């Protein structure tokens, strides 16, 4: 059981952040919106609260920008936007991921062909 959890953690590490980047690729989104979206993907995030530290890191490394803005209802929202370096990091991940996935599929026997 612990091994199963460990496996999904390992798979998540290094991929989840690019899913976050992709979420704000075309439009800015606020934290709760992002977190809600990931909350629906149980194999990506077991605890929604762990997304916030991730957003913080992505902002610190300069892949995301954030700014607070008023909301029509409720407290101010912190909107996240993809920066130029974030955008190129995402592009880089996309090409890496495709070849990585193909290699793993071929070796593990999970390929479609």
């Amino acid at each position, binding site marked *: *059981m*612990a091994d199963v*959890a*460990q496996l*999904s*953690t390992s798979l998540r590490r290094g991929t989840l952040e690019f899913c976050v980047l992709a979420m704000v690729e075309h439009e800015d989104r606020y*934290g*709760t919106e992002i*977190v809600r979206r990931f*909350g629906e993907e149980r194999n990506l995030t*077991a*605890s*929604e*609260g*762990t997304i*916030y*530290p*991730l*957003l*913080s*890191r992505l902002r610190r490394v300069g892949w995301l920008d954030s700014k607070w803005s008023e*909301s029509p*209802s*409720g*407290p*101010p*929202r*912190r909107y996240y936007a993809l920066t130029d370096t974030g955008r190129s990091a995402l592009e880089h991940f996309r090409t890496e991921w495709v070849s990585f996935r193909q290699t793993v599929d071929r070796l593990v026997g999970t390929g479609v062909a």
Partner: protein
Amino acid sequence: MSINKTDDAVAEYLQELELRLSGLPVLQRRELLADLEAHITSERIERAVVSEGEVLEILERLGSPEVVAAAAYEEAGLLQPAGAAAGRRLPPVPPPPDEPVFRDPVAPPPYVAPPPFSAPPPFVGPPVSPPPFIGHAPTKRGSGNGARIAIAVAIIAAVFIALGCMVGFLALARGSEAPEPMSGIAPEPAATAPLHDEVDLPD
């Protein structure tokens, strides 16, 4: 009424998280707490949450303070200090104080008992390696021998009494009938019964 209670739950959650984040740079700590507070508030407003149960659900989806703190340290590239993991003061629900930062947040190890002050891994604890014998041996040698003699006497007495009883019992048994054959007969019916069943079945 219920609003106060739910506010308490949220405040308690954030407070416990803050204690666990004491090892983070102040701005990162403040940022995370503000993010979570905004998250909880907007979830409550946008989902029109009022009952305590629903608020607890929001908190549960966020994950325990322990899990969120572990993620915060990992993302910050810092090791979680043992003191911060334990929450500086004793938390109301004592969690495993030395959960490794790299571990999966989903599976907190339940086996780690919560000894409040032994920070790192189990064996290391210096307070738990005392030499217990040395204190006792010299002072209590005399009385120890006395006790041993008393015990030996008691055992011998018990053996004699037991022997006496057996002798008496045997004498009585010889006087009346010998109960010997019982042991020979008993097993047979048990062994034959299943055989009959098997034989009967095909017919």
